[in-house]
């Protein structure tokens, strides 16, 4: 009886939805999105080149200050950097991802320098984003559904407090409490870095060692990030909660949990989806302050280093990578949105 009712009432919308899911967004919609993404990227490529050339500085003087470098030598070094701007621009446009663009500071291809830093960043920020999404969405759903009850009050207030906390400050507190140890509590976790010198990180014990090092930074980021997901999820679910279709579902005799899980949450997920994908794009950007507090050698701190000097080829490549990641994540979110919500398919 219950089964029959459910199938009967749901038949019309779910058939539509299924058809939509199979057909997906129109080709025109997809083409438009991809074209827009490419256009944005092209703009970034050009803008990127000129932006960093506005920065003041003299990398050669900075890197050689105080060292007995022959003045003739310095001139020679500088002249390699001071090609005419037009020439540089042409070289750059030929292939923005070229291996020829060398970092001034590291004297290695900029993309190679970046390559060694991607893994720590993704490990740190990626893990934290994933955990924050799962826990945040769960918290948001529960608080919204139990709006005004104690769980909601506690979780909303806590997440608001966490959300307003500067992440470096929270990280520093965790570092002092759990790495230095307070009130006779011993230091449980290391003071920074990704692994203990001499530990083979390709072995299972090495993985544990990396996990041990990443525990505090990942916890910090997760706690800071999750409030964003939970607050948005809570707000959008509360919006959905007054909708008529939920009353219909209840009228069918569905349990509250079923109503929540199969009717309200999927609709309320849309804004959260946008947020998730936007943030996935920012994963490679790193978390500058947390990398700083926990001495993690990621792309965030590389960017800060590159700004000193400035190391223009490196900055340029970093900026290109960050922009490409955000644009790609955005495009993906747009396309997925089109699949999830028929209203945005044109």
């Amino acid at each position, binding site marked *: 009886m219950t089964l029959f009712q459910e199938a009967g009432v749901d038949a019309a919308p779910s058939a539509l939805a299924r058809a939509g899911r199979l057909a997906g967004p129109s080709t025109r919609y997809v083409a438009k999105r991809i074209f827009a993404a490419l256009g944005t990227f092209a703009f970034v490529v050009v803008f990127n080149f000129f932006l960093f050339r506005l920065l*003041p*500085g*003299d990398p050669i003087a900075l*890197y050689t*200050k*105080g*060292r*007995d*470098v*022959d*003045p*003739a030598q310095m*001139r020679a*070094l500088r*002249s390699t950097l*001071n090609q*005419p701007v037009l020439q540089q621009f042409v070289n750059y446009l030929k292939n923005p991802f070229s291996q020829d663009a060398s970092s001034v500071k590291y*004297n*290695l*291809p900029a993309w190679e320098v970046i390559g060694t*830093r991607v893994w720590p960043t993704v490990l740190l920020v990626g893990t934290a984003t994933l955990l924050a999404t*799962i*826990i945040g969405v769960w918290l948001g759903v529960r608080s919204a559904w139990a709006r005004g009850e104690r769980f909601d009050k506690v979780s909303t207030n806590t997440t608001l407090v966490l959300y307003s906390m500067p992440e470096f400050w929270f990280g*520093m507190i965790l*570092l002092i409490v759990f*790495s*230095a*140890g307070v009130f006779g*509590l*011993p*230091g*449980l*976790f*290391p*003071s*920074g*870095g*990704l*692994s*203990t*010198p*001499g*530990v083979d990180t390709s072995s299972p*014990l090495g993985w*544990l*060692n990396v*996990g*041990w*090092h990443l525990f505090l930074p990942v916890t910090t980021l997760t706690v800071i990030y999750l409030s964003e997901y939970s607050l948005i999820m809570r707000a959008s679910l509360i919006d959905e909660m007054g909708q008529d279709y939920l009353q219909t579902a209840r009228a069918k005799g569905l*349990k509250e*949990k*079923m109503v929540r*899980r199969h009717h309200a949450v999927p609709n309320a997920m849309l804004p959260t989806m946008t947020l998730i994908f936007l943030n996935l794009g920012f994963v490679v950007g790193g978390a500058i302050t947390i990398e700083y*507090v*926990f*001495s993690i*050698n990621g792309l965030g701190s590389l960017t800060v280093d590159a700004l*000193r*000097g*400035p190391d223009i080829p490196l900055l340029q490549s970093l900026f290109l990578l960050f922009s490409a990641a955000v644009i790609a994540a955005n495009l993906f979110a747009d396309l997925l949105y089109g699949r999830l919500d028929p209203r945005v398919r044109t």
Partner: protein
Amino acid sequence: MRARSRRARVIAACAAGALAMGVTAGLAGAASADSTSPTPSSGSKSVLTIGTTDDIDSANPFTGYSVAAYEIFQMEYPTLTMYSPTDFSPTPRLAESWTESADHLTWTYKIRSGLKWSDGAPLTATDAAYTFNRIINGKYEQTNYDSYTANMVKAEAPDPTTLIITIKKPSPIMEKLYVYILPEHIWKSIDEKAVSSYKNEPAPGQTTVGGGAFLMAERRTGQFIRMVANPNFFGGKPKVDEIDFKIFKNQDAMALALKKGEIDFADSLDANVYKSLAGVPGVTQFPAVYSEFNELAFNTGAALESGKPIGDGSPLLKDKNLRVALGWAIDRKSLVDKVLGGLGSEADTIIPSMYANLHLTPANPVTYNPDKAKQLLDAAGYKVGPDGIRVAADGTKLSFRLYGRSENDISKKSVQFLKGYLAAVGVEAKVDLISSDALAEKIGAGNYDMFEWDWVVEPDPNYQLSTFTCANRSYLDSGSVTANLSDSFYCNPAYDALNEKQSTEPDVAARTAIVKQMQQMLYDDAPYILTFYIDNLEAYRSDRFTDFVPQPAPNGSLLFQYGTWTYESVQPVTNAAGDSTSSSKAGLAIGIAVLVLVAAAGVVFFLRRGRTGARADDEE
């Protein structure tokens, strides 16, 4: 129903993840506690772990130029001579002795016999000749060593213990050639094209081939560098088995690591971090005298090397009498106390007092005396105007821009004090804090009146003295003004002549006399007013390691020296108390147990929820 069980699995996975983290902490913590314990009683190898905020930029001695990179190079590769730990005089290293020809143009070095590289191959004069010739004849190779080799014609090794270097004109630098001697049998296969991108990092499980006290065993960019003792080192195998450099991005975490014993040495600390280490059991603070000076610099008339004026600096500051008068207005003692927290000393000349042999203590010291400053300003024709600010004869106010560096705490504090001292004698300083990159550009273009900055001075004075020559003022590079070494635009032909003389004077005593004369000249002409010499703040675990060697004696830096003295002599404390380590290990275990319990409780909670949820679904 299916959705439910999927969710339960996700939650269970999260909980399991948390549990894994807890166990991780346990295992890894225990493992690392074992591996980093340097106590000899445990019978394990001794590891000195040094915390630093500087990573090396490259491990290739032809490429790297950061302070940290030079530290690694001198650990790996020998030099002919090394600066002595007591007073920076050249002492024998690879070369036992050296002589110069009567015309000062041929130098003969007697190389120690029977030496070996770390891989067992013989280390002879041939390797030294190879290294010098490679640089002399190379282009890329010259980058780091040009100041030593630009004057060289060729290097020869007629036999395994004799190295002969021919030079173009006499030079005092030949006793202090800081060129790292490389093993020919390794480097000959890396040609000029390959060398610029050569990393010189060891393959896993191996070490680099070197002749210094330590060899690189592993490098993780931005994380750590592991150096292991070289058994073939000519000074005898070092007393610690391994030296690890652990790289921190912030000093607070580094100090914390020192407190809990994760590292044994912390270098170049900020004053506030350094002070936080006072009274920590087992930690010794060491405020080392250092070769860094801080100055108030003037735009003495910005011009290109050709003499063509540039920039918008105030012409008033070309007046030497004005600059000298301002010197009397500066309270250096207060600056040391208030800006450095007492961790430094008052400065006078550009060769820091740490280099006792070369430093000039002026016979006519300019001290803090605002009244005298006022008198001198009055006498020079700068009368106090109606608003309290002095005015020049032509009616121009004595109001100047004073730049400080926004990212440097010492700079930010200094400029505020300087502003106050100048105001007290009727001179207005308009303070502007900008990034050092932006400031460097302003200075190069001559667009400034005064600024605050610092220099770290090498043991050989040549470079520092050359920052005041006419030829080192800014120059034109394809039409645009480019900064050179000079940042005061001081230009004095008499000074330039002395500089030329000191750079070719082979006699030590005669050269010292010239160097002192040049310091006096700068002191009297005041393109800079020196404020203070800054201490290098170091701290180490004296409960674990001993026999650090200061350079210079008795209170110079213990690490990051011009030489590897500490690395060769440092050793574990023999009766190291194991109590602190064992108690912290016990604490670690307790903490981990708590953590695992919490994680386990989380798992139970989620699994129970999962089950009740499943039941609820069934009821539907």
